[in-house]
């Protein structure tokens, strides 16, 4: 994998402990001068370690997408600081890839052209681009649909195309906003295994937003649980699971227990969220 890495080799010699450092970040939508807006994030401080798979769990509307937009550099940080090993985040960059909740494919491009777009921007030679794009289309099981337009695909297929497009440019940091939300149970499981395998091979720093407790426990090294809006980090849990063992991880008692425990924590927040909505 590293041999095919399209970006220049990492030259920084930082110890690489901090992947993404989020310090005291708050975010408001609308309103002026701090008045009358919606507070989406309330003093978030979170250290995401380099090369860890970090899952973000929280009720709907708690600001998970907003936090990813801030890390991605799409929305300016209003207060606080977000820093990666490449420095303070001030805007988007190809070393922070994102899979949006609503896919955001380019509708006038075919699946292949969508995946090629990022590779063209990286300046890869034409032959390599094609090979690489086809490899990742194959990886998300979309072979045969290279020339389909997004409007000809199901929601789940569009989601997989968007995943291929982002994985193809091999970003150092991978931000994923419920990337498997539109998939059926089987495809979802296959994609989860595929993603974890990619992660084991490439050791990116992954921030993975999900509603699904099982998914978080299955994929992540650490899990942050956010409170109902305004979003705060409520709990951070380690998932200490020996993944090298070949058995079905989801059937182990420690997996089930951890899931139960997290579900309890999330449930409280979800109830608070529905109360807040009325």
């Amino acid at each position, binding site marked *: *994998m590293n*041999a*095919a890495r399209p970006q220049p080799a990492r030259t920084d010699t930082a110890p690489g402990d901090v992947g993404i450092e989020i310090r005291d970040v708050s975010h408001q939508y609308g309103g002026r001068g701090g008045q009358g807006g919606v507070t989406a994030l309330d003093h978030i401080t979170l250290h995401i370690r380099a090369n860890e798979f970090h899952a973000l769990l929280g009720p709907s509307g708690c600001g998970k997408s907003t936090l990813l*937009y801030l890390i*991605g550099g*799409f929305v300016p940080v209003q207060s606080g600081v977000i820093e990666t090993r490449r420095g303070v985040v001030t*805007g*988007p*960059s*190809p070393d*922070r*890839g*994102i899979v*949006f909740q*609503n896919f*955001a*494919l*380019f*509708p*006038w*491009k*075919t699946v292949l052209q969508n995946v090629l*777009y*990022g590779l063209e*921007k*990286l300046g890869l030679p034409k032959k390599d681009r094609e090979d690489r794009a086809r*490899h990742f289309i*194959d*990886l998300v*099981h*979309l*072979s*045969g*649909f290279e020339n389909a*337009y*997004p*409007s*000809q695909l*199901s929601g789940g*297929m569009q989601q997989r195309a968007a995943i291929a*497009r*982002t994985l193809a*440019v091999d970003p150092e940091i991978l931000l994923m906003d419920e990337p498997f939300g539109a998939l059926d149970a089987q*495809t979802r499981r*296959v994609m989860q*295994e*595929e993603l974890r*395998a*990619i992660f*084991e*091979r490439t050791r990116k720093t992954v921030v993975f937003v999900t509603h699904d407790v099982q998914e978080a426990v299955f994929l992540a090294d650490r899990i942050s649980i956010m409170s109902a809006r305004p979003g705060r980090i409520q709990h951070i849990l380690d998932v200490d699971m020996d993944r090298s063992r070949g058995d079905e991880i989801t059937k182990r008692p420690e997996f089930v227990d951890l899931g139960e425990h997290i579900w309890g924590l999330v449930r409280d927040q979800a109830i608070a969220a529905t109360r807040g909505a009325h």
Partner: protein
Amino acid sequence: MTRPASPAFTPARARGRAAPGPQAPSMLGAVWRRLTSDTVIQLAVIAVLLIAWETVTRLGLVHPFLLPRLSAVLERIYNNALNGKVFMDLGLTLYRAAAGFFIGVAVAIPLGVMMARNAGVRWFFDPLVSIGFPMPKISFLPIFILWFGIFDTSKIVMIAFSCFFPVVSATYAGTLGVDKWVIWSARSFGARESQVLREVVLPMALPQILTGIQIAVPVGLITTVVTEMLMGGPGIGGSMMAAGRFADSVGVFAGIVEIAVLGAIVVKGVERMRAYLLRWHAEARH
């Protein structure tokens, strides 16, 4: 780059799509569908109207000066085709319409995009466009004649001016409607601002821009003929006015038929272009 051991998995849907089962339709069904296809029906409607025109005039129900026979009109067009007048008139009209249209669109699209993306540009031009769009553009003709003279320049400026408004407002609305995530996607791959505009914003706004263009095309043709009628000289509008002045009603109707055919061909052509450019769009498949 080897793939990890994972269950071999080909989505059932993929296989289903890859091999669509073509069903042989019955001959009769195919013929019927052909007979009732949209184009055939549209042509049939026009044919019925033309036959009615010829019948009514042959039966002497209307005075031939008020409504000459279709056959007489077609004969005139045929003769004008033989001596080249039709091509001269149509060619000139088409040239003026095209020149004005392209100038108008070339100004309107960048301006519409800039209005949507830049507050300063928006503040300055939004009121101008709002005032100008509903105004009868032809009322500016005397000013254009004053500024640009009595020849082609003022005609073309007039046409460009009237094509400009539908396209600028459609482009503005279309650009405003481009959702932020698609733009962010491009930026996350390292697209610069100018690339985002060209590679993302324009294609995303294209359906609406084309809608504006589809309005501008007939508006441009109408403006061309009206301008020619008001200013005279060669071109279909001028020829029709000349024929009218000599009480040559066959000549006037010949002009009407010529501009009708030209307009229909151009409008159909633009429709085809839209279908081709938007083949990725859900609207292309029902």
